[in-house]
């Protein structure tokens, strides 16, 4: 049954990708959909890239094992949504090209910083991508019983075909459809049904006898770690190339902001509901050997078969939607930042043809490499996923935001800051491994503060100190001006009324989330 759903799924999405690929018009369309996407498509691809299988399955596993509230707090990227919506996305969009490297090279007038940013992207996003890939293959192996080493190349081929056929267009549309499935099937049907099935009176009774289960720390993590998650995922998400370059796709600045509001409106309630549901499963069955299988167990044993089947389809959607944007961004990092900048000899239509080929070839290359690296399920790979996000927070975030907001931010400052963030974060994260601890364990650092926080602070200090001692060139200032000059006719073409209604809706959802939290909190009082 699950196998049939899964393969129907793959077939439908491949069909959609090929169809969209035929409609694709040239290189700009392949790279950024010609910059024409509306708020729903941007919100879809932005959130689908971020709501991963490892999150939906791994973190709901933590909710089941140690408590739902603690697990909800692991989703620390929401602050990053807001920083992207208002402080990075609109200005980056004004620059409007394809990769973060495009912006870094122009803003700091330095091909070297483009190479550096490509290396950070390939290392950080590559680590994150492969960890997602291994996680997803493990999950589908568990659900479908298909061996990991068959599942892995199969999934990579699917991601690669989606990305190669239509580039940004097919990835964006398929991501949006899949994310809608996650929200509707898991958020709207499955999770409320689990909560209803378990029963609020049983959950209340359980909370009385197990008070720590419903606390914010779950009795298992410290506040230093919880704050570390908010910084790691918040700043890491704001500077994650796969997420922030979605701003290039947006029709205008208002569309981008609307999209991120939409993402917040949908994601927070879905995270709350799914994790409370996973926690509720603990009340009726505390003995699952593998906590990560909690939603799969609930889908087969707790709800009606139709809702269960839809929930499994929603989980597959989470599995398949994360990696396509990542593989696209990784491919562009090679084709755009390295090949086009340093090796392209052709010009005009010839160049465009050649670049399309190279962009597709780069995606295929990343696909092959990722299968080779992830083959045999190396356990280290799962640990480096978080590390990828912390590298973006430390190496990219200070340079990205200061470059957009401070005209005095110079090339020397940017290079020094990026290197400081990268090296400091890598060192502080790796040292615990030699102490026999996990990667990025923070117990040995003062106050138990997470390595990423020290690295971000260090990178900001270096950026400021070196920039203050040097002067930006004319061309650096020109790009700064370009990012900071508003052209209302182009940028604010979406009616203001539309943004106002998105804003009021955001406020309404905010009130609803608080009301729900208070209501649920009153039911699980100790």
């Amino acid at each position, binding site marked *: 049954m699950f196998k049939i759903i899964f393969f129907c799924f793959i077939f439908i999405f491949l069909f959609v990708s090929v169809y969209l690929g035929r409609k694709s018009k040239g290189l700009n369309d392949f790279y950024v959909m010609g910059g024409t996407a509306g708020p729903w498509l941007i919100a879809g691809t932005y959130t689908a890239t971020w709501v991963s299988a490892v999150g939906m399955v791994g973190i709901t596993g933590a909710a089941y094992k140690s408590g739902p509230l603690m697990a909800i707090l692991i989703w620390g990227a929401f602050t990053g949504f807001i920083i992207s919506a208002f402080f990075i996305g609109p200005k980056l969009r004004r620059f409007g090209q394809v990769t973060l490297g495009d912006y870094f090279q122009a803003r700091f007038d330095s091909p070297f910083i483009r190479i550096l940013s490509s290396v950070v992207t390939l290392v950080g996003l590559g680590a994150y991508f492969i960890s997602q890939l291994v996680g997803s293959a493990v999950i589908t192996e568990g659900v479908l019983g298909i061996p990991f080493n068959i599942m892995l190349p199969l999934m990579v081929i699917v991601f690669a075909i989606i990305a190669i056929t239509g580039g940004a267009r097919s990835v964006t549309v398929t991501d949006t459809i899949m994310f809608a499935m996650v929200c509707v099937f898991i958020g709207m049907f499955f999770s409320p049904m689990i909560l209803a099935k378990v029963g609020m009176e049983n959950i209340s009774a359980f909370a009385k006898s197990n008070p720590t289960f419903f606390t914010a720390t779950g009795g298992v993590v410290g506040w230093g770690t919880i704050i570390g998650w908010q910084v790691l995922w918040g700043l890491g998400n704001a500077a994650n190339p796969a997420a922030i370059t979605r701003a290039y796709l947006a029709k205008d600045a208002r569309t981008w902001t609307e999209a991120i509001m939409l993402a917040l409106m949908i994601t927070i309630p879905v995270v709350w509901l799914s994790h409370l549901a996973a926690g509720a499963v603990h009340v009726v069955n505390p003995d699952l050997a593998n906590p990560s299988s909690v939603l799969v167990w609930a889908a087969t044993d707790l709800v009606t078969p139709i809702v269960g089947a839809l929930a499994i389809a929603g989980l597959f959607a989470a599995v398949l939607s994360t990696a396509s944007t990542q593989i696209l961004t990784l491919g562009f990092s090679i084709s755009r930042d390295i090949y086009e900048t340093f090796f392209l000899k052709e010009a005009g239509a010839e160049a465009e043809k050649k670049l399309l080929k190279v962009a597709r070839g780069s995606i295929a290359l990343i696909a092959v490499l990722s299968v080779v690296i992830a083959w045999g399920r190396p356990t280290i790979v799962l640990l480096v996923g978080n590390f990828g996000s912390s590298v973006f927070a430390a190496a990219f975030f200070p340079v990205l935001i200061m470059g957009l907001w401070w005209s005095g931010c110079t090339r020397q400052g940017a290079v020094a800051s990026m290197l400081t963030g990268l090296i400091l974060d890598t060192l502080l994260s790796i040292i615990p491994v030699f102490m026999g601890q996990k990667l990025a364990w923070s117990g040995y650092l003062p106050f138990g503060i997470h390595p990423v926080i020290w690295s971000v602070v260090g990178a900001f200090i270096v950026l400021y100190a070196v920039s203050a001692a040097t002067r930006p060139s004319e061309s650096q200032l020109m790009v700064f001006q370009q990012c900071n000059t508003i052209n209302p006719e182009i940028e604010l073409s979406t009616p203001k009324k539309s943004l106002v209604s998105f804003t009021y809706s*955001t406020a309404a959802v905010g009130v609803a989330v608080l009301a729900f939290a208070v209501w649920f909190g009153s039911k*699980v009082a*100790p």
Partner: protein
Amino acid sequence: MNMGFLGVGLYHFSLYMICVGLAFYFMKTGRL
């Protein structure tokens, strides 16, 4: 009342409200 739920609820509520405040502020100043 479970204070953890109140706290995390307020945390997410404040994120929404920051978003709303920034949107209106940016619209007022002509940036959005």
